[in-house]
């Protein structure tokens, strides 16, 4: 079977239309146990208020579980879910090191294969673990073509150790190791274009997603889950503490990152762009930046601030033209269509007369 037919088949099976959540439980159970969704990641974890990463991981688990094993790199997600002797996970889950989630996942996958089991293996890491320190093991995993879905929870810095810059930290953001001040306007370098690097491994599927668009995020997880082979998802996950925004604004901030073009929502299959989330109404980057303390210095009365704002706007415009994020008629998969709600849920699953 050629890759093309296989992909067509998968699209058919796991593509656009998301399935409804289903996890029915008979008998008398508590309301929490009766939730009509798989609770792979439970309450009681120690994440901060409004944590985007906790939300992203829960959304992934909801539609990836229950038949999965997770290998988790060191980082906030690992720490806040597993304060011994408790665990927020309701699937087999293992933590080994910061730099080796992909390697551990590769090993588990090989073991599963040897035992003739179909259990899907997931590898989770933060941006530090993925863009930087675990990058080598991730590249190896992709190259060896392990049947693993790797999810990077991108909060754009080493948050667990106190907000140090990573290669994912956006240009001009303040972190403890890229402070804004007399010398410099926050991080000097650019955010690494990881999705393109991953896609260059010629893997079946690599995509970016955002906590602000959960239906889209879950569609991407389902799609990746149906692929036999390495797949990769990076999820933009605001960190109220590290980005210095109000905890209630996590979704708002994430949504504006997409709507201004700084965080493009793309899907690549075998290295080629196969889909983007069009932006119905593009906003200026300042709408996104002004919500966050990590960009506060960009609003100072300082010519360098103005220049950096223009630079970030140029980067957003670059994404928009490179990926073709505007144009076209209103579409139910664009930023407005995907966010739309109606009585009884998302319009796709809405009650009909």
């Amino acid at each position, binding site marked *: 079977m050629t890759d093309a037919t296989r992909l067509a088949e998968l699209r058919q099976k796991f593509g656009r239309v998301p399935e409804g959540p289903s996890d029915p439980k008979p008998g008398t159970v508590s309301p929490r146990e009766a939730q009509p969704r798989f609770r792979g990641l439970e309450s009681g974890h120690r994440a901060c208020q409004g944590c985007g990463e*906790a*939300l992203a991981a829960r959304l992934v688990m909801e539609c990836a579980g229950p038949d999965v094993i997770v290998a988790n790199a060191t980082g906030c997600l690992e720490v806040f879910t597993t304060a011994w002797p*408790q665990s*927020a996970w309701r699937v087999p889950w293992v933590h080994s090191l910061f730099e080796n989630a992909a390697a551990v996942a590769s090993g588990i996958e090989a073991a599963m294969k040897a035992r003739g089991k179909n259990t899907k293996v997931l590898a989770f890491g933060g941006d530090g673990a993925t863009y930087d320190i675990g990058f080598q093991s991730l590249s190896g995993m992709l190259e060896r073509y392990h049947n693993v879905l790797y999810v990077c929870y991108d909060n754009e810095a080493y948050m667990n150790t106190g907000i140090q810059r990573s290669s994912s930290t956006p240009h001009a953001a303040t972190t403890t190791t890229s402070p804004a001040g007399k010398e410099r306007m926050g991080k000097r370098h650019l955010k690494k274009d990881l999705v393109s690097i991953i896609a260059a491994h010629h893997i079946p599927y690599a995509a970016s997603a955002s906590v602000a668009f959960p239906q889209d995020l879950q569609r991407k997880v389902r799609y990746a889950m149906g692929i036999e082979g390495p797949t990769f998802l990076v999820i933009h996950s605001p960190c109220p503490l590290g980005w210095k925004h109000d905890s209630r604004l*996590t979704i708002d901030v994430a949504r504006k990152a997409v709507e201004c073009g700084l965080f493009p929502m793309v899907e690549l299959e075998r290295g080629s762009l196969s889909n983007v989330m069009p932006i119905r109404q593009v906003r200026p980057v300042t709408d996104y930046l002004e919500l966050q303390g990590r960009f506060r210095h960009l609003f100072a009365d300082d010519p360098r601030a103005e220049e950096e704002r223009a630079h970030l706007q140029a980067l957003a415009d670059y994404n928009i033209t490179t990926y073709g994020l505007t144009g076209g008629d209103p579409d139910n998969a664009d930023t407005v269509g995907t966010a739309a709600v109606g009585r009884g*849920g998302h319009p796709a699953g809405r*009650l009909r007369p």
Partner: protein
Amino acid sequence: MTILTRSAYGEPGTSLDFKTGNWRSTEKPVHIHAKAPCHGACPAGEDQQAWFALLQEGRVEAAWRALVAANPLPGVTGRVCPHPCETACNRKALDGALAIHNVERWLGDEAVANGWAYPVEEPPADAPVVAIIGAGPAGVSAAYHALRHGMRARIFEAASEAGGLLRSAIPPTRLPRAALNAELDRVLSLPGIEVTCRARLGRDVSVEALAADHAAVLLAPGCQEGRDWDVGGSVPADHHEGLALLKEFMDHGQFPAAQRVIVHGGGNTAMDLCRLMKRFGVGEVTLVTASGLPGPDTATDDLINVVPRELEEALEEGIEIIPHATVNRLIMRGSKVVGAEVASLKKVPGTDGRKKRVTFEGTERVRDVDMVIPCIGEMVDPEGLHSWINRGYLRPSDHWGTLSDRIYALGDARGDRGTVAEAIGDGARAVAAVAARLNGGEATTDTRAELPASDLNPVYYPPAARSVAPKLPVSERTFEAEIEGDIGHEAALAEAARCLSCGNCLACDNCWTFCPDSAVIKTAELATDGSFYLFDLDYCKGCGLCAQECPTGYIQMRPE
């Protein structure tokens, strides 16, 4: 209880032992059930959000039943109400207010066509009986609401048919008699309501006699008595008062001969009269009104008091309107009018803080006309009501309509009303007060705060254009055919789907989906409203995200 494991592992899901809710900030999320602004603005007391919600679920009959819990005549108000609800609608700021009246009308007509039963039962034979004077919308509404409270109603109507001004004054082109009769008959034939026509207060019955053997007497006689009118002392010999002219036309289909007419006033009567005369063949019809026309700078108390689309249609039909003006002087030849002096006028703040009308010197202009028709409002016919009338009206002391112990005033006769919806609301309120009093309590009002547009999260509502009702072209407008059409089933449901559900949960699942702590619990797979969601405060950290992303403003953060 915390279970210590032997080595570095934890049992699945045991984090639930650790109640992160005790980390909560100073605030917790609550469900608020706010009042939607449309509801707050509807003089008939309809909760449009509630019936739109049922339509969104596809439950059309249930939606009608929810509507008629307040207003028994949706087919009427859907056609003639100036819809203040739409002026208040929060969707106005997005892409146009809900076309509430279109859907209301459609629901009313559906109920008639399908014979849906009103949600009332016949009260027992020995139930308290209220006596009602007048079978206009106020009296009819009061009778209907009496049934809803378990009381019987006995209406005394002076005319030969029920309906009040709906029948005698509002032109059939706006309110076809078939539609009026169908709805009115359905209400008045409900068991427990008794209507006696040709029974006039003062002549056939008296307030005192009725009060003696009824639980209460509700006075809804409307305003029938023309006011005296003269301009600078001159009254033409062939003087016609607007409402009388209109009623006459309804009965006989004739207007006195005239080619150029000025109608002086700024309400429904003036507007209807202008349009009918123009259609009848009067060459020039000019409306002179002290009020202003709708515009961005028009203050609400300055705005001409007519149904907005009425004004639009009048202009289409070639009626000339002179706003902020008055008729200063009549130019007479003998006792016949040959001209009118019109001058500019404006309401300006007076020294006592109240607005006063000032006519501006030097703005006088003379129009050649054959007739000047005042439409300056009517007062209560004092017959049988002498002891209750106060400067032309009944003027009750409160919004329940209380005149005295068991006597209430409702509708136009109060003196501070002027629309069908207000009359209907008055009927409901007066009966609620009577019922509460019989039960030894006091009636209560909905004191919930209204949800401002700023509490919504508009991101989640995709654009959707407001429905437009079909309209007869000017050339096809007659004296009978209804000018505005029905929007139909599909458009009505599409319009209902535009409702933002202000202040009330629409079960979008956003809170459930977005809570990073799974502290929002959903109790059914298919939810339709807020009764399906709970906050599990054992795990809620008070981040405020659910409140921020709730599209409807139904979740708000409150101090612990």
